[in-house]
């Protein structure tokens, strides 16, 4: 049981970072596969609602089935990490961030998300639509436009020294900083 207690603690960045980095060679060696989560959104569209769209006309089973299985595992891993190995204490966020977020009106710091914002009652409010629906839409749209997300570009692409991925990651941060500093004060 001591092992479980040990695993329930939050894992520090210097443990988690290398473990995430190891996913890249694990997938390459497992079957020459490239680590990239957002490609699954395309595979799901190709499988379920391809319409008559050129972008979704490809053999998703051949190129994407392994990745859909991988993401099913990610969901399962979320269950294991979030239920069986969950850390009972609030996340140790920096005091400055807590002060800034309190000033925006956020009061619940207990879970992985602020439950006062990310809840089903708030989905149809202006704030909920912008954060969850527009935000989600841009994650999907932007990831495919850029040809990858954090895993494909920021981890795999940068590790393979690809200039394209550096450009994409610069975009990720430019976009994130703009929302955080310019837009957040208007939506909270």
């Amino acid at each position, binding site marked *: 049981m001591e092992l479980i207690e040990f695993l329930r603690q939050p894992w520090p960045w210097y443990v988690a970072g290398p473990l995430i980095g190891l996913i890249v060679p694990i997938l390459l060696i497992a079957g020459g596969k490239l680590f990239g989560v957002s490609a699954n959104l395309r595979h799901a569209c190709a499988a379920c609602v391809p319409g008559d769209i050129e972008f979704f006309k490809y053999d998703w089973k051949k190129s994407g089935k392994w990745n859909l299985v991988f993401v099913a595992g990610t969901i399962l891993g979320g269950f294991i990490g979030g239920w069986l190995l969950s850390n009972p204490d609030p996340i140790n966020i920096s005091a400055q961030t807590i002060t800034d977020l309190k000033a925006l009106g956020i009061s619940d710091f207990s879970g992985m998300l602020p439950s006062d914002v990310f809840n089903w009652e708030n989905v149809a409010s202006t704030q909920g639509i912008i954060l969850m629906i527009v935000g989600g*839409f841009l*994650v999907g749209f932007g990831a495919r436009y850029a040809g990858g997300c954090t*895993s494909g570009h920021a981890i795999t692409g940068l590790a393979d020294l690809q200039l394209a991925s550096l450009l994409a990651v610069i975009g990720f941060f430019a976009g994130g900083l703009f929302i955080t500093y310019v837009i957040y004060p208007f939506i909270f």
Partner: protein
Amino acid sequence: MKNYIKYLLAGIFFGIVLIKSEVVSWFRIQEMFRFDSFHMYGIIGLGVVVAMISIQIIKRKNIKDMEGNAITIPPKDPKQVTRYLIGGTLFGFGWALTGACPGPLFSLAGAGYSIMIVPILSALAGTWVYGKIRPSLPH
């Protein structure tokens, strides 16, 4: 199906690490964009370093994958500057709004945050709309 178990296990490992490292936390993403903590930078930075060393070893030793094939990483076309900068920026908007990128969206859903179904469905819609209007976008 047997061939897919390794990918399922890799995904489970990834999902657990995302949760236990708190990468899935909306607060951690805010902290990152506010430059208030080294946590996320340390994770992404070390992740890149470990992946980079691994890729170099695989390339230099010509390591084959478990199916016996040579391992190649297709390069992305760096001449398509527009798509990476604009697409990347739009993704960054979404990352900061939802506080999650695709991996964490799925991992959080598995951890019981059912509300994440909303941004996941929206992300599918965004992907579909991209596919639809792709021919008219600058790349």
